[in-house]
């Protein structure tokens, strides 16, 4: 029960920080939604980083590494450590500048102005919203599950989810961007501390990592210390995923909150170091968990995995699915710390996990900002009812969205939203050409933007359909889905749909860029007038 009490204390603290830090300025939309564009360099760095870290960073990364080995770090951390800061330098700084000069608060506002369009902006808003909502739902589910786990079942799932939803809703409602950013900064510090503490404690518990590494090299798990189980093309595909970051509305909106452009400098330079500090311990612990046979829960996972490898194909599908669930490593870091750490650290871990699963606050606020600016204000609500009504609408939207997410979370299994967030990364990466074209290509048009957006929506729907209708085959095998001339082009692998050996994100992004280029070139009459272009390409 002690870990549950620590988690409750943590939730109370977060609520206090968010509400207290964000109080005041409630009638002004820019203050509520963008913290008055006044965030300082440290909060900007920690909060931008925290906003981009989800439950996956701690739990999912170690779970993925437990099953797939060291490749996890190269797939998800080192590529992001390069691509995300570069996009912040090249694109984020421009978003900040345009937001400051023209008062933009959302990417769609910028697109509407840049391409002189109205309803096409609404289509982009709709696609962005559909791709973002699963994150909010999955956070409610994660919160409910975590509270139920740390309380030993005393807090049921429905109550845990409701408590987490209420806390997040509370500080987003009262604190707006200022409160949310401060909470995110606090949570990032917790993530950073957790990695170092967990490594130290688990190392002490296992008698150092050297012996574990040597015995792993001599065991059947040795391939987990290399990348021989994944193809270089699969590895390369993952470098496209971080392109999604700058296209995510909550990140683009966050870029507009900095007080000064120079605040980006520290964020850009230190972003890779933060990635290293959080991901290296998570991945490393996930890998060495394969040697933590003294922890019964981990031993059970290893046995399930071994049985799946030896007898998997001969077992009925239900038994295979059962073994896959037993072997899954998403809670492996929890089990490691439980096995080797004192109670106080388990409690701290519970709070860190809660911090990770509560990373949906920025998405909720972004969706609220988008709704009030891109729909309410655009279709005349602000003009008719005033700015105070706009902020009230934003707050009401926060309540409705959180309630909706909670109700869906009670009824739909988490696995569906786990998959949905995977689509969202690929979808947002495919929307990145819109941002690039808007900021850097005079010749881009609204029709090019519409074509790229519709292509993204159709491609995401197609990938979702393939992955839900064709069950995953055993690891190492692929089911042909489309084989023109006998050559398999689209296949269903254990990791998901593949296109000519690449993850779908690669063709989705490339074709989206082509759509933008080709359709814009075909519609030169739709190019904005010189006044508009001068605002974006003055130099």
């Amino acid at each position, binding site marked *: 029960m002690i870990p549950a009490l620590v988690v409750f204390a943590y939730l109370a603290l977060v609520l206090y920080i968010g509400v207290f830090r964000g109080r005041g300025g409630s009638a002004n939309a820019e203050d509520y939604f963008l913290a008055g564009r006044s965030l300082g360099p440290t909060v900007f760095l920690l909060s931008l980083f925290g906003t981009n870290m989800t439950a996956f960073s701690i739990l999912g990364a170690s779970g993925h590494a437990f099953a797939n080995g060291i490749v996890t770090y190269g797939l998800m951390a080192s590529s992001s450590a390069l691509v995300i800061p570069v996009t912040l330098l090249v694109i984020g700084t*421009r978003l900040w500048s345009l937001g400051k000069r023209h008062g933009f608060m959302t990417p769609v506002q910028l697109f509407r102005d840049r391409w002189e369009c109205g309803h096409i902006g609404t289509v982009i808003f709709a696609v962005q919203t559909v791709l973002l909502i699963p994150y909010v739902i999955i956070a409610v589910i994660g919160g409910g599950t975590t509270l139920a786990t740390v309380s030993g079942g005393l807090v049921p799932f429905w109550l845990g989810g409701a408590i987490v939803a209420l806390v997040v809703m509370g500080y987003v409602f009262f604190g707006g961007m200022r409160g949310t950013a401060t909470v995110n900064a606090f949570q990032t510090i917790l993530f950073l501390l957790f990695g170092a503490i967990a490594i130290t404690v688990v190392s002490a518990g296992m008698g150092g990592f050297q012996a574990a590494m040597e015995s792993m090299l001599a065991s059947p798990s040795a391939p987990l*210390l290399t990348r021989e189980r994944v193809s270089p093309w699969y590895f390369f595909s993952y*470098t496209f995923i971080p392109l999604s970051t700058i296209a995510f509305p909550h990140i683009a909106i966050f870029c507009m909150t900095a007080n000064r452009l120079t605040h980006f400098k520290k964020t850009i330079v230190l972003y890779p170091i933060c990635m*290293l500090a959080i991901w290296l311990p998570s991945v490393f612990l996930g890998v060495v968990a394969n040697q933590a046979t003294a922890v019964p829960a981990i031993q059970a996972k290893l046995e399930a995995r071994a049985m799946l490898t030896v007898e998997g194909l001969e077992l009925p599908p239900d038994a295979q699915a059962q073994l896959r669930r037993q072997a899954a490593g998403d809670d492996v870091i929890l089990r490691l710390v439980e096995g080797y750490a004192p109670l106080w650290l388990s409690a701290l871990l519970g709070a860190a996990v809660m911090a990770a699963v509560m990373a949906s606050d920025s998405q909720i606020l972004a969706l609220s900002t988008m709704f009030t600016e891109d729909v309410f204000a655009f279709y005349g609500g602000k003009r008719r009812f005033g700015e105070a009504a706009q902020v009230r609408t934003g707050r009401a939207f926060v309540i409705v969205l959180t309630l909706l997410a909670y109700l869906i979370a009670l009824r739909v299994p988490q696995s569906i939203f786990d998959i949905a967030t995977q689509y969202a990364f690929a979808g947002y990466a495919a929307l990145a050409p819109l941002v690039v074209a808007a900021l850097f290509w005079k010749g881009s048009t609204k029709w090019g933007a519409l074509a790229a957006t519709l292509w993204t929506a159709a491609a995401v729907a197609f990938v979702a359909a393939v992955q839900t209708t064709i069950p995953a085959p055993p690891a190492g095998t692929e089911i042909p889905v489309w084989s023109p001339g006998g050559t398999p082009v689209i296949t269903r692998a254990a990791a998901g749909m593949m296109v000519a050996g690449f993850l779908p994100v690669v063709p989705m992004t490339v074709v989206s860029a082509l759509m933008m280029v080709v359709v814009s070139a075909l519609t030169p009459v739709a190019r904005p007038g010189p006044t508009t272009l001068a605002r974006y390409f003055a130099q």
Partner: protein
Amino acid sequence: MRRMRPLAATALVALLYALHQDVWLWREARPIVFGILPVGLFYHAAYTVVTAVTLWALVRLVWPHHLE
């Protein structure tokens, strides 16, 4: 010289992007650096630090002062 800066910055980023695809370490676990890090993991950890240093250089080299 000033006009060469964006070109140099682009080349640096392209080089780092290419170095991410370290196929030459694909099947190697040894050496185990510091006794605990397989060489492939060490490479990408070191790559992350080099990325931070490169970004520091980029911020000095091609900072968009005109946007301030």
